[in-house]
Protein backbone atom coordinates (compact mmCIF):
# COMPACT_ATOMS: atom_id res chain seq x y z
CA UNK A 1 0.00 0.00 0.00
CA UNK A 2 1.48 3.33 -1.00
CA UNK A 3 1.50 6.26 1.37
CA UNK A 4 2.10 9.91 0.91
CA UNK A 5 5.16 11.28 2.60
CA UNK A 6 2.96 13.19 5.03
CA UNK A 7 1.31 9.93 6.12
CA UNK A 8 4.70 8.31 6.61
CA UNK A 9 5.99 11.32 8.52
CA UNK A 10 2.81 11.44 10.59
CA UNK A 11 3.24 7.85 11.71
CA UNK A 12 6.95 8.20 12.44
CA UNK A 13 7.26 11.72 13.79
CA UNK A 14 6.99 10.75 17.47
CA UNK A 15 9.71 8.11 17.31
CA UNK A 16 11.90 10.30 15.14
CA UNK A 17 11.59 13.16 17.58
CA UNK A 18 12.76 10.89 20.40
CA UNK A 19 15.63 9.79 18.18
CA UNK A 20 16.51 13.40 17.46
CA UNK A 21 16.41 14.16 21.18
CA UNK A 22 18.83 11.32 21.85
CA UNK A 23 21.15 12.40 19.05
CA UNK A 24 21.03 16.00 20.23
CA UNK A 25 21.56 14.93 23.84
CA UNK A 26 18.23 16.23 25.09
CA UNK A 27 18.46 19.68 23.48
CA UNK A 28 14.84 20.12 22.41
CA UNK A 29 15.38 23.08 20.12
CA UNK A 30 18.22 21.34 18.31
CA UNK A 31 16.21 18.12 18.09
CA UNK A 32 13.28 19.99 16.61
CA UNK A 33 15.50 21.67 14.03
CA UNK A 34 17.11 18.37 13.14
CA UNK A 35 13.74 16.68 12.75
CA UNK A 36 12.24 19.42 10.57
CA UNK A 37 15.39 19.64 8.49
CA UNK A 38 15.53 15.85 8.03
CA UNK A 39 11.89 15.49 7.05
CA UNK A 40 12.02 18.46 4.71
CA UNK A 41 14.97 16.98 2.85
CA UNK A 42 13.54 13.47 3.01
CA UNK A 43 10.35 14.75 1.36
CA UNK A 44 12.24 15.20 -1.89
CA UNK A 45 14.12 11.91 -1.52
CA UNK A 46 10.85 10.11 -0.97
CA UNK A 47 9.47 11.42 -4.23
CA UNK A 48 12.38 9.78 -6.01
CA UNK A 49 12.73 6.50 -4.10
CA UNK A 50 9.51 6.00 -2.16
CA UNK A 51 11.66 5.20 0.86
CA UNK A 52 12.61 1.73 -0.40
CA UNK A 53 11.34 -1.46 1.18
CA UNK A 54 11.27 -0.09 4.69
CA UNK A 55 10.34 3.60 4.63
CA UNK A 56 10.37 3.92 8.43
CA UNK A 57 13.92 2.61 8.63
CA UNK A 58 14.86 4.78 5.67
CA UNK A 59 13.68 7.82 7.62
CA UNK A 60 15.73 6.82 10.67
CA UNK A 61 18.75 6.50 8.42
CA UNK A 62 18.06 9.96 7.03
CA UNK A 63 17.90 11.35 10.54
CA UNK A 64 21.33 9.97 11.34
CA UNK A 65 22.69 11.08 7.98
CA UNK A 66 21.55 14.66 8.51
CA UNK A 67 22.76 14.64 12.11
CA UNK A 68 26.24 13.54 11.05
CA UNK A 69 26.28 15.94 8.10
CA UNK A 70 25.72 18.83 10.49
CA UNK A 71 28.55 17.87 12.82
CA UNK A 72 31.68 19.94 12.79
CA UNK A 73 34.58 17.99 11.31
CA UNK A 74 36.31 17.70 14.65
CA UNK A 75 33.46 15.57 15.95
CA UNK A 76 33.49 13.18 13.05
CA UNK A 77 35.96 10.70 14.52
CA UNK A 78 35.66 10.43 18.28
CA UNK A 79 38.59 9.03 20.14
CA UNK A 80 37.78 5.85 21.98
CA UNK A 81 39.17 5.77 25.50
CA UNK A 82 40.35 2.43 26.72
CA UNK A 83 41.41 3.23 30.24
CA UNK A 84 38.28 1.76 31.81
CA UNK A 85 37.91 -1.28 29.64
CA UNK A 86 38.14 -3.57 32.59
CA UNK A 87 35.88 -1.57 34.83
CA UNK A 88 33.42 -3.87 36.43
CA UNK A 89 29.90 -2.96 35.55
CA UNK A 90 27.51 -1.99 38.23
CA UNK A 91 24.31 -3.84 38.68
CA UNK A 92 21.52 -1.88 37.13
CA UNK A 93 18.06 -1.71 38.59
CA UNK A 94 16.21 0.28 35.99
CA UNK A 95 16.94 3.18 33.67
CA UNK A 96 15.03 6.40 34.06
CA UNK A 97 13.87 7.34 30.55
CA UNK A 98 14.01 10.99 31.55
CA UNK A 99 17.79 10.98 31.90
CA UNK A 100 18.56 8.91 28.83
CA UNK A 101 18.68 11.82 26.38
CA UNK A 102 20.78 13.97 28.69
CA UNK A 103 23.11 11.07 29.36
CA UNK A 104 23.66 10.75 25.62
CA UNK A 105 25.47 14.07 25.84
CA UNK A 106 28.34 12.29 27.59
CA UNK A 107 28.98 10.29 24.45
CA UNK A 108 30.68 11.67 21.31
CA UNK A 109 28.18 12.50 18.59
CA UNK A 110 29.20 9.77 16.17
CA UNK A 111 29.13 7.15 18.89
CA UNK A 112 25.72 8.47 19.92
CA UNK A 113 24.47 7.82 16.40
CA UNK A 114 25.91 4.29 16.48
CA UNK A 115 24.34 3.57 19.85
CA UNK A 116 20.98 4.87 18.73
CA UNK A 117 20.94 2.72 15.61
CA UNK A 118 22.31 -0.48 17.09
CA UNK A 119 21.53 -0.56 20.79
CA UNK A 120 18.22 1.31 20.78
CA UNK A 121 16.84 0.75 17.28
CA UNK A 122 18.29 -2.74 16.84
CA UNK A 123 19.79 -2.16 13.43
CA UNK A 124 22.23 -4.85 12.36
CA UNK A 125 25.93 -4.04 12.26
CA UNK A 126 25.85 -4.07 8.47
CA UNK A 127 22.91 -1.68 8.31
CA UNK A 128 24.39 0.66 10.88
CA UNK A 129 27.83 0.60 9.28
CA UNK A 130 26.27 1.56 5.95
CA UNK A 131 24.29 4.38 7.53
CA UNK A 132 27.38 5.71 9.27
CA UNK A 133 29.57 5.23 6.18
CA UNK A 134 32.01 3.13 8.13
CA UNK A 135 33.05 -0.48 8.59
CA UNK A 136 32.16 -3.00 11.25
CA UNK A 137 35.40 -2.54 13.16
CA UNK A 138 34.93 1.20 13.59
CA UNK A 139 31.30 0.59 14.48
CA UNK A 140 32.38 -1.76 17.25
CA UNK A 141 34.74 0.91 18.55
CA UNK A 142 31.90 3.41 18.60
CA UNK A 143 29.66 0.97 20.40
CA UNK A 144 32.17 0.73 23.24
CA UNK A 145 30.75 4.04 24.40
CA UNK A 146 27.74 2.12 25.54
CA UNK A 147 29.33 1.88 28.95
CA UNK A 148 29.82 5.64 29.05
CA UNK A 149 26.15 6.06 28.26
CA UNK A 150 25.19 3.58 30.94
CA UNK A 151 27.43 5.26 33.49
CA UNK A 152 25.95 8.65 32.65
CA UNK A 153 22.45 7.24 32.98
CA UNK A 154 23.29 5.88 36.40
CA UNK A 155 25.36 8.85 37.52
CA UNK A 156 24.09 11.72 35.40
CA UNK A 157 26.17 14.36 37.15
CA UNK A 158 29.46 12.64 36.52
CA UNK A 159 31.11 13.13 33.20
CA UNK A 160 32.70 9.76 32.62
CA UNK A 161 34.87 8.79 29.73
CA UNK A 162 35.18 5.06 30.30
CA UNK A 163 34.16 2.47 27.81
CA UNK A 164 33.70 -1.22 28.17
CA UNK A 165 34.72 -4.06 25.94
CA UNK A 166 31.36 -3.93 24.19
CA UNK A 167 30.96 -6.86 21.91
CA UNK A 168 34.41 -6.60 20.43
Amino acid sequence: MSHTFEELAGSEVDGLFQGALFLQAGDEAAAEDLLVWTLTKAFHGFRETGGGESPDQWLEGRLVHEFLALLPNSSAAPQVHTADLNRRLQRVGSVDPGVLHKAAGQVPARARAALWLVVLRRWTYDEASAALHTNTEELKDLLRFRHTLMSAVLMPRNALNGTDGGMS
Partner: protein
Amino acid sequence: MAMTCSTARETLWPPEKLRLAGEGVLLARKHVDDCADCREYFRQDRRLLDAYHRLREERAPRRVRERVFDSLARERAGSLARELNQDARTGPGSLSLPRWMVAAAASLVLLSALGTTAMWVNRLSAGAEAGELFVDDYLRRAVGQDNILTSDPDQISRFLVKELGFLITPMQVEGLRLAGAEVCFLDGRRGAMIRYQQNGREVTHYLIPREGVEERAPRQSGILPGGFEGRAAPSVITWATPSIEHALVGEVPAERLMRIARKASSL
Protein backbone atom coordinates in the same frame (compact mmCIF):
# COMPACT_ATOMS: atom_id res chain seq x y z
CA MET B 1 37.55 -24.23 24.40
CA ALA B 2 36.61 -21.24 26.57
CA MET B 3 34.72 -18.44 24.91
CA THR B 4 35.62 -14.79 25.38
CA CYS B 5 33.14 -12.22 26.65
CA SER B 6 33.08 -10.33 23.37
CA THR B 7 32.43 -13.48 21.32
CA ALA B 8 29.67 -14.58 23.65
CA ARG B 9 28.03 -11.16 23.47
CA GLU B 10 28.31 -11.01 19.71
CA THR B 11 26.85 -14.48 19.40
CA LEU B 12 23.83 -13.79 21.59
CA TRP B 13 23.06 -10.21 20.68
CA PRO B 14 20.38 -9.08 20.16
CA PRO B 15 18.97 -11.43 22.77
CA GLU B 16 15.40 -11.13 21.48
CA LYS B 17 16.38 -12.53 18.08
CA LEU B 18 15.44 -16.17 17.51
CA ARG B 19 18.49 -18.27 16.71
CA LEU B 20 19.30 -21.93 16.28
CA ALA B 21 20.81 -23.46 19.37
CA GLY B 22 23.96 -24.57 17.58
CA GLU B 23 27.22 -25.33 19.29
CA GLY B 24 28.36 -21.70 19.29
CA VAL B 25 25.13 -20.48 20.82
CA LEU B 26 25.20 -23.16 23.50
CA LEU B 27 28.79 -22.27 24.37
CA ALA B 28 27.92 -18.57 24.48
CA ARG B 29 24.97 -19.22 26.76
CA LYS B 30 27.14 -21.26 29.07
CA HIS B 31 29.67 -18.46 29.12
CA VAL B 32 27.02 -15.88 30.00
CA ASP B 33 25.59 -18.12 32.71
CA ASP B 34 29.01 -18.30 34.30
CA CYS B 35 30.07 -14.70 33.70
CA ALA B 36 28.67 -11.95 35.95
CA ASP B 37 29.90 -9.19 33.62
CA CYS B 38 28.15 -10.66 30.61
CA ARG B 39 24.95 -11.22 32.54
CA GLU B 40 25.08 -7.63 33.63
CA TYR B 41 25.81 -6.55 30.07
CA PHE B 42 22.60 -8.14 28.81
CA ARG B 43 20.66 -6.80 31.79
CA GLN B 44 21.82 -3.29 30.94
CA ASP B 45 20.93 -3.83 27.30
CA ARG B 46 17.38 -4.72 28.27
CA ARG B 47 17.10 -1.76 30.65
CA LEU B 48 18.29 0.70 28.03
CA LEU B 49 15.94 -0.71 25.44
CA ASP B 50 12.99 -0.64 27.84
CA ALA B 51 13.72 2.96 28.76
CA TYR B 52 13.93 3.96 25.12
CA HIS B 53 10.73 2.13 24.21
CA ARG B 54 8.93 4.05 26.94
CA LEU B 55 10.23 7.29 25.48
CA ARG B 56 9.14 6.36 21.96
CA GLU B 57 5.58 6.00 23.15
CA GLU B 58 5.52 9.70 24.02
CA ARG B 59 3.98 11.98 21.42
CA ALA B 60 6.06 14.76 19.97
CA PRO B 61 4.81 18.15 21.20
CA ARG B 62 2.08 19.68 19.08
CA ARG B 63 4.42 22.58 18.28
CA VAL B 64 6.89 20.16 16.72
CA ARG B 65 4.25 18.34 14.70
CA GLU B 66 2.82 21.62 13.44
CA ARG B 67 6.24 22.83 12.40
CA VAL B 68 6.98 19.59 10.57
CA PHE B 69 3.74 19.60 8.65
CA ASP B 70 3.90 23.30 7.87
CA SER B 71 7.34 22.73 6.44
CA LEU B 72 6.14 19.77 4.38
CA ALA B 73 3.15 21.78 3.14
CA ARG B 74 5.52 24.48 1.93
CA GLU B 75 7.72 21.92 0.22
CA ARG B 76 4.75 20.28 -1.45
CA ALA B 77 3.37 23.60 -2.60
CA GLY B 78 6.76 24.53 -4.02
CA SER B 79 7.04 21.21 -5.84
CA LEU B 80 3.52 21.50 -7.16
CA ALA B 81 4.21 24.96 -8.49
CA ARG B 82 7.36 23.74 -10.23
CA GLU B 83 5.44 20.87 -11.80
CA LEU B 84 2.70 23.21 -12.93
CA ASN B 85 5.23 25.56 -14.48
CA GLN B 86 6.72 22.63 -16.31
CA ASP B 87 3.29 21.51 -17.49
CA ALA B 88 2.46 25.00 -18.61
CA ARG B 89 5.62 25.08 -20.72
CA THR B 90 4.67 21.82 -22.43
CA GLY B 91 1.27 23.18 -23.49
CA PRO B 92 -1.98 24.42 -22.04
CA GLY B 93 -3.81 21.16 -22.70
CA SER B 94 -1.69 19.33 -20.17
CA LEU B 95 -2.89 21.42 -17.25
CA SER B 96 -5.41 19.20 -15.54
CA LEU B 97 -5.53 20.61 -12.02
CA PRO B 98 -8.22 23.01 -10.90
CA ARG B 99 -7.42 26.67 -11.27
CA TRP B 100 -7.45 27.24 -7.52
CA MET B 101 -4.66 24.72 -7.14
CA VAL B 102 -2.56 26.82 -9.46
CA ALA B 103 -3.32 29.90 -7.38
CA ALA B 104 -2.62 27.90 -4.24
CA ALA B 105 0.73 26.71 -5.41
CA ALA B 106 1.71 30.12 -6.66
CA SER B 107 0.74 31.75 -3.39
CA LEU B 108 2.95 29.36 -1.49
CA VAL B 109 5.99 29.52 -3.71
CA LEU B 110 7.20 32.71 -2.08
CA LEU B 111 6.52 31.31 1.36
CA SER B 112 8.24 28.09 0.48
CA ALA B 113 11.27 29.85 -0.90
CA LEU B 114 11.64 32.14 2.07
CA GLY B 115 10.91 29.57 4.72
CA THR B 116 13.04 26.83 3.26
CA THR B 117 15.92 29.10 2.47
CA ALA B 118 15.86 30.40 6.00
CA MET B 119 15.97 26.92 7.43
CA TRP B 120 18.58 25.65 5.03
CA VAL B 121 20.82 28.63 5.52
CA ASN B 122 20.44 28.84 9.25
CA ARG B 123 20.52 25.10 9.73
CA LEU B 124 20.62 24.43 13.42
CA SER B 125 21.77 27.84 14.46
CA ALA B 126 19.68 29.35 17.18
CA GLY B 127 20.24 32.82 15.82
CA ALA B 128 17.27 34.97 15.08
CA GLU B 129 18.11 36.09 11.60
CA ALA B 130 15.50 37.72 9.49
CA GLY B 131 14.50 34.59 7.57
CA GLU B 132 14.03 32.55 10.67
CA LEU B 133 11.95 35.27 12.25
CA PHE B 134 9.78 35.21 9.18
CA VAL B 135 9.19 31.50 9.54
CA ASP B 136 8.58 31.88 13.26
CA ASP B 137 6.04 34.56 12.63
CA TYR B 138 4.29 32.49 10.02
CA LEU B 139 4.14 29.50 12.35
CA ARG B 140 2.91 31.60 15.24
CA ARG B 141 0.08 32.89 13.15
CA ALA B 142 -0.72 29.47 11.77
CA VAL B 143 -1.00 28.01 15.23
CA GLY B 144 -2.38 31.01 17.06
CA GLN B 145 -5.10 32.29 14.77
CA ASP B 146 -6.67 29.08 13.69
CA ASN B 147 -10.31 30.11 13.55
CA ILE B 148 -12.58 32.90 12.39
CA LEU B 149 -16.19 33.63 13.26
CA THR B 150 -18.02 35.36 10.44
CA SER B 151 -20.82 34.82 7.97
CA ASP B 152 -18.93 36.66 5.24
CA PRO B 153 -17.73 34.11 2.64
CA ASP B 154 -15.05 36.49 1.34
CA GLN B 155 -13.53 36.89 4.80
CA ILE B 156 -13.49 33.14 5.23
CA SER B 157 -11.85 32.62 1.86
CA ARG B 158 -9.19 35.19 2.72
CA PHE B 159 -8.61 33.59 6.10
CA LEU B 160 -8.19 30.14 4.58
CA VAL B 161 -5.88 31.40 1.84
CA LYS B 162 -3.73 33.00 4.50
CA GLU B 163 -3.71 29.97 6.79
CA LEU B 164 -3.62 27.14 4.28
CA GLY B 165 -2.25 28.77 1.17
CA PHE B 166 -5.08 27.85 -1.14
CA LEU B 167 -8.44 29.23 -2.09
CA ILE B 168 -11.56 27.63 -0.71
CA THR B 169 -14.94 29.19 -1.37
CA PRO B 170 -17.63 28.34 1.18
CA MET B 171 -20.73 26.61 -0.15
CA GLN B 172 -23.77 28.74 -0.80
CA VAL B 173 -26.78 26.53 -0.29
CA GLU B 174 -30.25 27.73 0.59
CA GLY B 175 -31.02 27.28 4.27
CA LEU B 176 -27.36 26.91 5.18
CA ARG B 177 -25.95 29.88 7.07
CA LEU B 178 -22.22 30.40 7.18
CA ALA B 179 -20.88 30.69 10.76
CA GLY B 180 -17.11 30.52 10.59
CA ALA B 181 -14.06 28.46 9.74
CA GLU B 182 -11.12 26.79 11.42
CA VAL B 183 -7.88 25.23 10.45
CA CYS B 184 -7.98 21.58 11.35
CA PHE B 185 -5.21 19.03 11.68
CA LEU B 186 -6.18 15.50 10.74
CA ASP B 187 -3.80 12.60 10.37
CA GLY B 188 -0.88 14.89 9.91
CA ARG B 189 -2.61 17.11 7.39
CA ARG B 190 -3.75 20.68 7.67
CA GLY B 191 -7.13 21.36 6.22
CA ALA B 192 -10.18 23.57 6.47
CA MET B 193 -13.23 23.10 8.62
CA ILE B 194 -16.07 25.42 7.59
CA ARG B 195 -18.97 25.76 10.00
CA TYR B 196 -22.58 26.36 8.97
CA GLN B 197 -25.88 26.51 10.80
CA GLN B 198 -29.09 24.93 9.57
CA ASN B 199 -32.24 25.34 11.66
CA GLY B 200 -30.14 25.87 14.75
CA ARG B 201 -28.00 22.78 14.12
CA GLU B 202 -24.36 22.92 13.24
CA VAL B 203 -23.14 21.42 9.99
CA THR B 204 -19.41 21.20 9.41
CA HIS B 205 -17.67 20.83 6.08
CA TYR B 206 -14.13 19.38 6.22
CA LEU B 207 -11.79 19.85 3.27
CA ILE B 208 -8.48 18.01 3.56
CA PRO B 209 -5.97 18.26 0.68
CA ARG B 210 -4.73 14.82 -0.26
CA GLU B 211 -2.47 14.18 -3.18
CA GLY B 212 -3.67 11.70 -5.78
CA VAL B 213 -7.15 11.21 -4.36
CA GLU B 214 -9.63 10.21 -7.05
CA GLU B 215 -13.01 11.82 -7.50
CA ARG B 216 -15.68 10.02 -5.50
CA ALA B 217 -19.42 10.57 -5.29
CA PRO B 218 -20.98 11.47 -1.93
CA ARG B 219 -21.94 8.55 0.25
CA GLN B 220 -23.06 8.13 3.80
CA SER B 221 -20.40 6.88 6.15
CA GLY B 222 -21.20 3.53 7.69
CA ILE B 223 -19.17 4.33 10.76
CA LEU B 224 -21.26 5.06 13.82
CA PRO B 225 -19.12 6.94 16.28
CA GLY B 226 -19.37 5.97 19.91
CA GLY B 227 -20.00 8.31 22.82
CA PHE B 228 -23.45 9.45 21.73
CA GLU B 229 -25.51 7.48 24.17
CA GLY B 230 -28.85 9.14 24.76
CA ARG B 231 -28.67 11.42 21.73
CA ALA B 232 -28.47 11.07 17.99
CA ALA B 233 -25.05 10.41 16.51
CA PRO B 234 -24.03 12.91 13.83
CA SER B 235 -24.54 11.99 10.21
CA VAL B 236 -21.42 11.85 8.08
CA ILE B 237 -21.24 12.14 4.29
CA THR B 238 -17.91 11.82 2.53
CA TRP B 239 -16.81 12.45 -1.04
CA ALA B 240 -13.74 13.51 -2.94
CA THR B 241 -12.93 16.00 -5.63
CA PRO B 242 -9.52 15.97 -7.32
CA SER B 243 -6.90 16.39 -4.57
CA ILE B 244 -9.40 17.08 -1.78
CA GLU B 245 -11.17 14.79 0.66
CA HIS B 246 -14.51 16.21 1.82
CA ALA B 247 -16.78 15.35 4.69
CA LEU B 248 -20.01 16.88 5.91
CA VAL B 249 -20.77 16.19 9.54
CA GLY B 250 -23.80 17.37 11.45
CA GLU B 251 -26.54 16.38 13.85
CA VAL B 252 -29.12 16.59 11.08
CA PRO B 253 -30.77 13.82 9.05
CA ALA B 254 -28.38 12.11 6.64
CA GLU B 255 -30.67 12.74 3.66
CA ARG B 256 -30.42 16.46 4.25
CA LEU B 257 -26.63 16.32 4.42
CA MET B 258 -26.59 14.19 1.29
CA ARG B 259 -28.53 16.83 -0.65
CA ILE B 260 -26.02 19.46 0.43
CA ALA B 261 -23.09 17.21 -0.45
CA ARG B 262 -24.47 16.50 -3.92
CA LYS B 263 -24.84 20.18 -4.59
CA ALA B 264 -21.35 20.90 -3.27
CA SER B 265 -19.72 18.08 -5.23
CA SER B 266 -21.31 19.22 -8.47
CA LEU B 267 -20.12 22.81 -8.13
